[in-house]
């Protein structure tokens, strides 16, 4: 929790008048602003002003309020809810209001106790500051004055904070804590000391020069995503699905393999053990590019379901502000929020306590605009500063609709703003087809952008292959209905072959095992080769069919085993695909002729 001390000073202390769950009403806080943070009661619980009516200040409290009663003091802090930004963020694990959970454990024990406080960035650690500008240089907000190698993967850029510009009077290489002055800037209003740590109110988007439409894919290594429903750097996506359909596994896979520089993972109102899983697994997993542990580029925000609901509401903002800060350095940042439904429920709970007029399903009427504002903080941008750095922030939100029902207000409000929809299908999960992303329901509005990019940068066959495979899957759906009525035998041979080909697309391409060392990640190149292999079989088999061979013969060709194992070909051995393709050509080729001979 970052809190600035009020500069106005001498402000009066207020008094609690009402306590109802996480909502506390206080009086005597004249001058306190909307969204200002306060300390409530003798236990000094963290809270935030969310409504002002005359002298009645409604405060949402981030901690359990049992034991708080009327008459207890309320002290305003003078600042809105803010996060601390600077070296020390990477590899950290925070709660919803940026309290470091590792430090809390050391200081307060295994359980989260009330009123516990610890600075988000360690004040004692010394970081090696490497200046990037010399004394005498003119700087404006956003300019990088120096760098800190924060982790093996992250070079932390120290930027001039907003509102500061002028000539650098003093700057020196050295070992500093986040609070020590690393540079002095001579501004119009006098000298200003710069520290490595900045603060930023979480409910305000950080400034940028301008936004661009996204143009570059965010490669995730997940075949169904990259090939059929791609995401871009700076884009937005959502993953709705009922429980057990694999939302969290999809989110974890993206956090692991997405080709972003920084991952901010927000566990919002979800299971504690899932965060533990991330904490234990990420240090063990190697980034496919650098080979370094994935934890070296990850920031975690964990506000599990049993942690206070108001802090859950804040956790999403805490996460996105940290993500924006790294974007401002010129990095590609991806933020995962699991799950935005829990965030919306937190809003609903607070809104209910405020006795606001409810909208759909008891959610507040402003649900849609809050969700839109959140996703709108994504984007591909030009960062502040003279350097004209480009950065991007992609947001991937999980949604957990009740009973998997997509008419849920949170899903609908989300779909209005996000560009990619990965619809998880319970029946696929039930068949253990993972990732259970439905190829019939999902969509990506970035498909054309990514097709153009892949055709240009990777292989011009990309978009053609994708379209062909998708057409097969859609045709299968139509045929399935027929099969359900009249049985498989009633289909014509070409249609049965299409069913076989489609099954192969599903099982040999779309199905991807997140827990297999090789299968968990596929490069774009491998994805293309794999799909081409599957389609090559279809093409060759169609020829054999035309030459008169039977469908059962084709279906039982031994090469099909090799096709099904092709997804396990290692990235370093992609030339093996050629062998599989040759095998297909050979075996299918023989089939037709054998039939012709037998017939003759």
């Amino acid at each position, binding site marked *: 929790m970052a809190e600035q001390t009020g500069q106005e000073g001498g402000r009066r202390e207020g008094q609690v008048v009402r306590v109802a769950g996480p909502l506390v009403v206080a009086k005597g806080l004249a001058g306190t602003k909307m969204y200002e943070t306060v300390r409530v009661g003798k236990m000094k619980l963290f809270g935030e002003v969310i409504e002002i009516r005359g002298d009645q200040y409604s405060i949402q409290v981030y901690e359990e309020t049992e034991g708080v009663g009327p008459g207890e003091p309320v002290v305003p802090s003078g600042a809105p809810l803010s996060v601390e930004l600077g070296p020390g963020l990477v590899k950290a694990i925070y709660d919803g209001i940026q309290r470091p959970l590792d430090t809390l454990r050391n200081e307060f024990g295994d359980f989260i106790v009330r009123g516990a406080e610890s600075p988000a960035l360690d004040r004692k650690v010394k970081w090696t500051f490497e200046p990037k500008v010399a004394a005498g240089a003119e700087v404006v907000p956003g300019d990088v004055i120096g760098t800190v190698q924060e982790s093996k993967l992250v070079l932390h850029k120290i930027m001039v904070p907003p509102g500061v510009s002028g000539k650098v009077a003093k700057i020196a290489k050295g070992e500093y804590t986040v609070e020590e002055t690393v540079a002095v800037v001579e501004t119009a209003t006098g000298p200003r000391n710069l520290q490595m740590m900045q603060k930023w109110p979480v409910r305000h988007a950080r400034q940028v020069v301008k936004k661009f439409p996204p143009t570059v894919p965010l490669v995730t290594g997940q075949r169904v995503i990259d090939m059929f429903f791609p995401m871009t750097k700076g884009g937005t996506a959502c993953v709705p699905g*009922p429980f057990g359909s694999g939302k969290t596994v999809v989110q974890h896979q993206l956090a692991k393999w997405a080709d972003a520089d920084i991952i901010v993972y927000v566990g919002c109102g979800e299971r504690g053990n899932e965060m533990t899983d991330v904490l234990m697994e990420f240090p063990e997993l190697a980034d496919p590019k650098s080979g370094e542990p994935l934890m070296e580029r990850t920031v975690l925000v964990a506000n599990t379901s049993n942690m206070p609901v108001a802090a859950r509401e804040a956790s999403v903002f805490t996460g996105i502000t940290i993500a924006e800060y790294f974007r401002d350095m010129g990095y590609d940042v991806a933020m995962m929020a699991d799950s935005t439904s829990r965030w919306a429920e937190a809003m609903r709970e607070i809104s209910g306590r405020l006795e606001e007029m409810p909208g759909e399903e008891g959610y507040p009427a402003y649900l849609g605009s809050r969700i839109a504002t959140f996703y709108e903080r994504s984007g591909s941008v030009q960062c502040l500063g003279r350097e004209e750095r480009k950065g991007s922030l992609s947001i991937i939100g999980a949604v957990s609709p009740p009973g998997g029902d997509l008419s849920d207000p949170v899903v609908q409000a989300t779909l209005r703003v996000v560009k990619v929809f990965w619809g998880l299908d319970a029946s696929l999960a039930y*068949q253990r087809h993972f990732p259970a992303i439905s190829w019939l329901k999902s969509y990506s509005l970035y498909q054309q952008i990514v097709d153009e990019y892949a055709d240009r940068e990777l292989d011009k066959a990309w978009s053609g292959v994708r379209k062909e495979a998708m057409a097969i899957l859609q045709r299968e759906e139509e045929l399935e209905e027929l099969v359900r009525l009249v049985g498989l035998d009633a289909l014509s041979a070409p249609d049965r072959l299409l069913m076989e080909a489609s099954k192969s697309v599903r099982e040999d391409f779309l199905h991807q095992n997140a827990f297999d060392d090789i299968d968990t990640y596929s490069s774009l190149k491998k994805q293309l080769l794999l799909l081409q292999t599957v389609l090559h079989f279809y093409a060759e088999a169609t020829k054999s069919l035309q030459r008169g061979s039977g469908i059962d013969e084709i279906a039982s060709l031994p090469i099909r085993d090799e096709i099904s194992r092709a997804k396990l070909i290692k990235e370093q051995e992609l030339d093996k695909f050629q062998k599989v393709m040759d095998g297909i050509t050979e075996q299918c080729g023989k089939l037709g002729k054998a039939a012709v001979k037998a017939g003759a």
Partner: protein
Amino acid sequence: MDKEYLTIKEIAGPLLLVQDVRGISYGEIAELRLPNGQTRQARVLEVQEDNALVQVFEGTDGIATSGTKIRFLGRGQEFGVSPDIMGRVFDGFGRPIDDGPEIIPDKRLNINGNPINPFARDYPNEFIQTGISTIDVMNTLVRGQKLPIFSASGLPHSRLAAQIARQARVLKTGDRFAVVFAAMGITFEEANFFIEDFRRTGALQRAVLFINLADDPPIERIATPRMALTAAEYLAYELDIHVLIILTDMTNYCEALREISAARKEVPGRRGYPGYMYTDLSTIYERAGRIQGRNGSITQFPILTMPEDDKTHPIPDLTGYITEGQIILDRSINAKGIYPPVDVLPSLSRLKDKGIGQGKTRADHAGVMNQLYAAYARGKEAEELAVVLGEGALTPTDLLFMKFAGAFEQQFVRQGEDENRSIEQSLDLGWKLLGILPRSELKRVRDEYIEKYWRPAASADGAEKSEG
């Protein structure tokens, strides 16, 4: 603090409005004294200046606005713990009801507990053998997991839960083990079944029971699981005991939650359940787990009956979003006379992958599990097709899968109530059934394990005459 008030102004449902109170805090416990000498407990739901809204646990019948005294105790709801709670039976408020002596507590703990710091958690990965094949092989339970049983009225979930409580053990020996049992709104008969079962098998000595029966106050039901979890946390984290906690029936708990929410005139969420039900349930379920550096653990087995067998009803739905999987009991399997009627297809244990394999169960476990699952799913599909189109429409392979599915239900799913199968026995049984299928169909298991364990059925179940 010990001032008594006579200022009850309004009574509505279980709620009282008390005026002119001083120094009251949110969540505090109060004691009511009726003119006839009866006492009741209440909790502060809201305080506004000098008004307090309190909820009476035992209900408000017989309370008048005049003559009833209310005294605020200045503390939240607590449970007094000591090692002596083992083997005892309490009511939903933590008062002994087994004619035993009063507990002299070592300390009193607030029943709401504190959330475990996610950083302090240890990932659950120790296999618990329940002796039930459908759980051990297909939906493996690990220490610190919360794995609910989704049941429905008329299904034998109580018998299954009792069997698990009896048989559950960790392969590593020497650890201390206890069962905490919380009954919420169940009938006397059901509660008695558990108590007698624990007594019969000697499990009672290492059990702590909290009983809130169907005719006990619904509001007591809100406290019951928290009492039980507080006891469990004490046993697990202070006495280093591995605790298995059974919570039955969560549906009754949620109904009580709805009842109170309605009495408070809160804006209802889906089907009238309060909007905060997810958060409320999570404060129960998330109290399962393991903590780094502590020897004990809490494994939860909540039981809930799905209204109208509907998995999308808010109670199972929200539960499924919090718990780490679910064991689903199925009416049609039950109708075939198979006990336990576990439908393995929609059942799931999210933590199974970390608890199985070499050194934990057996190296072939994952492969066998996937193969059994896939084969059973295919067999069930074939069965459905056979119903529509007749067996003649099936390929010979599909017929074999259909035969497999039948044998799987009859031999693997079905087991005796006192039949405690070791994990090896269960896995071997799985292999025996896979013998029905041709070897070329076993694509989910590695060849080395097929070599080692797989034998064609001719020798394995040659004794069976029904299959000709």
